[in-house]
């Protein structure tokens, strides 16, 4: 009995206080920690890959008046970093920030707006300008500058279909 109590006392005396002086001194997380996500709007092309990967479905994308709005409701974030993993442009990054308590969860939201490209024929906004630019660059680089300069490259998928059908029709005649 006494031996046990002595052993317990020794364990306590040997370790004394182990509590860290946090928050008076910072307690940085380990390397590779996934904290609050950060969106680099200069890189985002508005493709929506993050939207499909997000398990709590907190990312919303809406198109209105030739603007694509991407909203992150980060109050629901589980910090899994799947969005950062699938982002083709590496626009999403997980910071080491973890002190995120707030009185209003909307403080955590991120909203980004991207300009949309208009179809050369029907004038509807069909995708973001950045996706079109990216595609043009790729076509010019991989196929040729002439291919990228074609008029139909600036058409929306629906108008492109019509254009293509007309082309085939003319070729038959």
């Amino acid at each position, binding site marked *: 009995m006494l031996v046990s109590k002595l052993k317990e006392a020794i364990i306590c005396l040997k370790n004394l206080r182990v509590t860290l002086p946090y928050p008076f001194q910072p307690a940085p997380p*380990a390397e590779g920690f996934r904290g609050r996500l950060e969106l680099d709007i200069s890189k985002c092309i508005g493709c929506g890959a993050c939207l499909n990967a997000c398990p709590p479905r907190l990312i919303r994308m809406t198109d209105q008046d030739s603007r694509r709005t991407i909203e992150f409701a980060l109050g629901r974030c589980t910090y899994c970093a*799947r969005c950062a993993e699938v982002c083709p442009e590496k626009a999403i990054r997980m910071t080491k920030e973890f002190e995120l308590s707030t009185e209003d969860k909307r403080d955590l939201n991120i909203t980004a707006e991207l300009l949309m490209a208009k179809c050369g024929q029907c004038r509807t906004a069909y995708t973001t300008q950045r996706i079109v630019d990216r595609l043009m660059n790729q076509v010019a680089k991989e196929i040729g500058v002439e291919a990228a300069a074609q008029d139909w490259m600036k058409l929306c998928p629906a108008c492109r279909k019509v254009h293509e059908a007309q082309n085939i029709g003319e070729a038959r005649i």
Partner: protein
Amino acid sequence: MQAWRIREPVMWLCEEITGNRKTYGMNLIGGVRRDIRAEQYPKILEVIGKIEGQLKEVIDAIAGDTTLHLRLKNVGVLPPEAARRLCVVGPTARGSGVTIDSRVNHPYAAYAQVSPKVITQPEGDVWARTLVRLGETLESIRLVRQSLEQMPAGDLMAEVKEIPPWREGIAYVEAPRGESIHYVLTGTDNRPYRWRVRAPSYTNLQAVPTMFQGNSIADAPIILGSIDPCFSCTERMEAVDVKTKKVRVYSQEELRQMSRKRR
């Protein structure tokens, strides 16, 4: 309190390996997302070696502590027959001398290669369950060492592009509290349509009325604590009348009113 102190370095280790203390986010369909880096191996071994020593010190100190024995022995007894009848799982069953462990009975993942030992105690009281948990911690340390030694090289993920919709899957793992079962029905867009979890706390909580019998109210918190229940897994109740096939879901308020009523 000393147990919390010993545990903390493990949490730091988890954060370093997975990127978070608790919500690891490691598993995806097809594999795991992060590998254990070469420089992390010696660190893991160092941390678990340290906690092993500290844990043995604590076990050695409390083993003969008569104050603890008076408080925990013969309290919240769940006899082996009752444990079997109520289908309890995990340390709650093993503390009543029932030798079950899904890692041994139905080896999954790599458990067939590391041969876990089943730790049991015959008494069925709070002290027995405590001893089982302590013994299992040491056993887990041994398993971590063994797994690190045998860790093969190779890919972490198999590429899975489309998950076929409307298929069912069921899986079980031995969680710290016992066997946890997950059922999933796949839906469209690579997402689950229905997901049902039977957490070990659900089965273990059924044994609480038996454990409470003949004990004082002061014993209730430690008896409940000894099965380590997860209330967020079990705060709802659905009653099915087998004869009429009627289903009724009880709300939190209804359950509270029922528990306050004298039988």
